[in-house]
Each structure stands twice: as structure tokens, then as C-alpha cells.
């Protein structure tokens, strides 16, 4: 059984049909590329999965249980993490603080928790997380704003990992990076797979999708137009699906 299973998911905004019955499954520990032109429904679909939108019809189940009706926080707690294109980092805070943003471990004093942040633990665990990823970040005390785009992407991925997710959805993680940094982020994605974490990679950069994915799902006008193993398709075939020539 698939880790994530979508069955006939539909979503409309007014009289625009954004999703017209999307069905597919994602296996545990696999990397799936999700491609499609602007307006094909990729973002809407991801927002339905992460609970930001509620699908009008169809069902979404994760790890054997329906998640259609859950709030974003609850879905995250089940193990789905989304990394947005803008990364949602605080540039003037350091790496460790960013990794634990919004869920800082606190110390209690005489049984009272006054929200005092356990700084030592944050740094220790942030270092462990960076190490686990094999990310190239000199120190968890660096301000995120001083890091390169690729390093910032690593921080965002490390933050997603602190939730111990089973599935990580990445929205255009390589779009704004230098060539050398792209390779590093792709290596991070392979590392996630090695650790048994499934990845959905949304990208316009087909070379990146072909480099790391096992399967490629193409969306067009709110429908799955192709769902093929990467090894059995070609760049030309995928482009044809995306633009509607295939």
C-alpha cells in the first residue's frame, strides 16, 4: 500500500476547475518528480495534501489513514513536511534558531516553564541534524542571511527533518541556486531517500527531476497526464506531456 494515496481529488475555485480528479500513490522512501506548466495545478494539489486547502471531492490518505479533514498542524504531525520556495527562514536568526523555529525546546525552573529556551539543546540537536544531512554549514551559529542559497536550502531541509517526517514535499528547491549548489541539494534529496523518507520534488528543471527521481508525474489542466518510471521515459516525452503535445 502506498504511503500517500490520492483518489479522484477535485478542487475548484469559482468556475475554475483547478484539480479535475487527480489520483496517484507515493511509496515510502521513494523520490517522485511532479512536473507541469504554470497553472497545471501543482501548487493547489500540494496545498490540498498539506491541509491548507480542502479538496471538494475525492480522498487523500496517508500512512493508512484519511487526512482530508485534518488541519495543517495535524497533517504535519502525521509526518508530511512542506518546504516552500521562499524557504520561510528568518535571515537575522542563526541556523540553530531557524531549525527549531516555532517549537523551541524549553527548560523548566522549579517545575515552572516560563518559555526559557534550552539553547544548549537547540545547538546540539541542530548540529546533529546538519551532520545527518551532510550539509556544508560551517557553524549553527551563523546567521542564515549570511549563507548561500544552497546552504539556506539545507537549513530549510534540516528544519523539516526535526519533525521526523515520512514525506517531504519540496517546491522548486533548485530554482534560485548556482550550478554547484544544485548538485548539493540533489545529494541532500538522495540522502533523504537513503534514510527512508519519501520526497515529492516539484520542479521546472527537468534535468534535476531526472537526476534524482524514480517516477515522474506530469500534471496538465488539473489532471494527471502521465505517471511513469523515470527510467522508462525521456526528457522529450515529459516536455511533450507538459505542453500537451503528447
Amino acid at each position, binding site marked *: 500500500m502506498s504511503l500517500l494515496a490520492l483518489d479522484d481529488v477535485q478542487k475548484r475555485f469559482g468556475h475554475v476547475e483547478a484539480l479535475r480528479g487527480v489520483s496517484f500513490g507515493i511509496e515510502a522512501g521513494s523520490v517522485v518528480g511532479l512536473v507541469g506548466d504554470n497553472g497545471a495545478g501543482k501548487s493547489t494539489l500540494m496545498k490540498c495534501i498539506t491541509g491548507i486547502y480542502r479538496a471538494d471531492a475525492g480522498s487523500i490518505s496517508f500512512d493508512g489513514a484519511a487526512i482530508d479533514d485534518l488541519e495543517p498542524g495535524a497533517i504535519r504531525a502525521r509526518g508530511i513536511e512542506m518546504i516552500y520556495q521562499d524557504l520561510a527562514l*528568518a*535571515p537575522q*536568526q542563526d541556523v540553530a534558531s531557524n531549525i527549531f523555529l516555532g517549537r523551541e525546546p524549553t527548560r523548566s525552573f522549579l517545575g515552572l516553564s516560563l*518559555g526559557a*529556551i534550552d*539553547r544548549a539543546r537547540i545547538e546540539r540537536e541542530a548540529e546533529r541534524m546538519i551532520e545527518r544531512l551532510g550539509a556544508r554549514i560551517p557553524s549553527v551559529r*551563523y546567521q542564515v542571511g549570511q549563507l548561500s542559497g544552497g546552504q539556506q536550502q539545507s537549513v530549510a531541509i534540516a528544519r523539516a527533518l526535526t519533525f521526523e517526517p515520512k514525506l517531504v514535499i519540496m517546491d522548486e528547491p533548485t530554482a534560485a541556486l548556482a550550478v554547484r549548489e544544485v548538485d548539493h541539494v540533489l545529494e541532500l534529496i538522495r540522502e533523504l531517500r537513503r534514510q527512508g523518507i519519501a520526497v515529492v520534488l516539484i520542479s521546472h528543471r527537468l534535468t534535476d527531476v531526472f537526476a534524482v527521481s524514480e517516477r515522474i508525474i506530469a500534471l496538465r489542466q488539473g489532471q494527471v497526464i502521465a505517471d511513469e518510471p523515470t527510467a522508462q521515459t525521456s526528457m522529450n516525452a515529459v516536455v511533450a506531456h507538459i505542453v500537451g503535445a503528447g
Partner: protein
Amino acid sequence: MSASTSGAGFGALLARTGRSTVRVESLIVLALLIAAMAILSPYFLSVSNFLNILLATSVIGVLAIGATYVICSAGLDLSLGSVLGFSGVVGALAVDQLGLPWPAAMPACLIAGGFCGLINGLLVTRARIPAFIVTLGMLGIARGAALVLTNGQPVYGLPAELLFLGQGRLLGIPMPVLVFVGVALIAHYVLAHTTFGRYTLVIGDNEGAARATGIRVERHRVKLYVLSGTMAGTAGLLFMARVNAGDPTAGLNYELTAITAAIIGGTNLFGGRGSVLGTFIGALIMGVLQNGLNLLAVQSYYQQMAIGAVLILAVWLDRINAQRLQRA
């Protein structure tokens, strides 16, 4: 903070010792100022003069703590000085007109200040009016209300117990100094080491990121304006107790001085960075400058010029630092 990322040396040491976000530059400026004043004036270096500086800084300093929190969250509170005047008047009237026992003046001041802050916060977050406009409006409203309540005349005749808070000493240290330092220590700890402080900085740094990680941005902002108003109330209480009256014109233009102290102390005007310890140093820089120039019998008009120059210099140094880091 800016220097804390260099591999070794003083910056790294600062980073290790609790990563307090105090700019090394402001510490150096303060040290240089103290050294210069000590050389220029034989009266400068003494415990009693140092307490004088702290006493003169205490009211502005408490206001500046409120300013620091709000500015760190990329907000602004221009109503601080007026709310100071309003709360002092409310505190004095509570005792003088309502005949409440003297201790009631203390919560009266704080509640009056916090109430103004609550209105600021609700207007900023619910009505979505820019903080500049809301607090500029409150600057007029609070000042006007203070004048209306008192017919423009100071409220005299406060009980002696209350005056102790402004004029008394404990172990030789003036009460306002004790209050200022005590509030500053707590406020510093909260901003630098608790989730409340962290969220304040993150909201100012990247509101979208704060929202995405589940921080309740609007609620937090309301709390910050209430905090800022309560600080203005505390400053109003100290001012009232020190001048022995509920003066409706108290704290005129103090908001700008308080914001200046916060900025000199390293608070980023656009949010995301700042510390109460830094603001404390910023306020001390202004206090030392004023005190020293007074001792040197320099006309007070020049003091205003000097403080203006220090403000511009502080932000300029920041700019240079930021550019250096960009290149690195």
C-alpha cells in the same frame, strides 16, 4: 551580533557568552565617551555622578525598553511619550480625586499605559492600520486626554509614600535607578532567552516565516503593544513620583529620544534584531554625553546636536558592517 560571526577574537567570545546581541561598536563608543569625559572633567568619575547619570536616564530608559520590543518586531510606537504623560495623570488622579490609597497609583499608571497599548495593538492587527499612523494618532489622543482630565494643570499633593518611588533611595541607590535596572534585566532575559523574545524577533525578521512555523503573529503583536504601553505607564509612574505631580505635559517628545536610544543600542529599525542590553548601553551613551557636556558647561543646544550626530553615526556604522558582511 554583526561581529559574532568572525572566527576568533572578541566577537567570537561575545557569541559564546550567551550570544547576547550587543554590538561591540556601541560598547566601544560608550567606553570612549566615558574615557573622554573622565579626562575632560575632574567631576565625572565618581559613584555619585554615575548614579546621577543612571537617574537621569531611568525614565527614558524604561520607555526605550518598550520601544526596543516593538521595533524588534518591525513595529513602531510613537505614542510612548504621550502615554507616559497620560498614565502619570491617571495615577495621580486616582489618589488625588478618587481618594484611593497611595499604592493604587502604581497599578493605575500601569493599567492606563497598558490600555493605550492594547488599543494600539488591536488597531494595528485587527483594523490593519499601519503602526506609524495608529501610534501617531495615539500620541495626540493620549496627550489630549491627559490635558482634558487635568484642565491642563498639573495634579499636585501626592502622598509622601509615593514620592519615595521617585525621590527615595535604597542602600544609597535612587529608586528610579533600581526600577530601571530591574526592569531592564528581566526584559533583557525575556527578549534574548525565551520563546516570547524569539518570536518577537522572528516576526520582525520575516513575518511569513513566523506564520509558516505556527507563531500566532497577530496575538503576539497585540501583546507587544500592551507591553510597550505598560513600559510607558511604568515610566509615567517614575516621572510622576520624581516631580511630585501628575503633569499632563510630562514626556513630551520622549518617544523620539527612546527610539534613538534603542537604535544607538543596535536595534534594527526594520525589525529582527535588537537587545535590551544594547538599548541600555544606547541610553547610557546619551546619558553620559548629556551629563559630561553639562559638567563641561556646554550649552544644552549643543547636546541635542551631539545626540543627533551619534544617532546617525550609529546607523552608519551598522550600514558599513552590513556591507562588509555581504561581501564576506
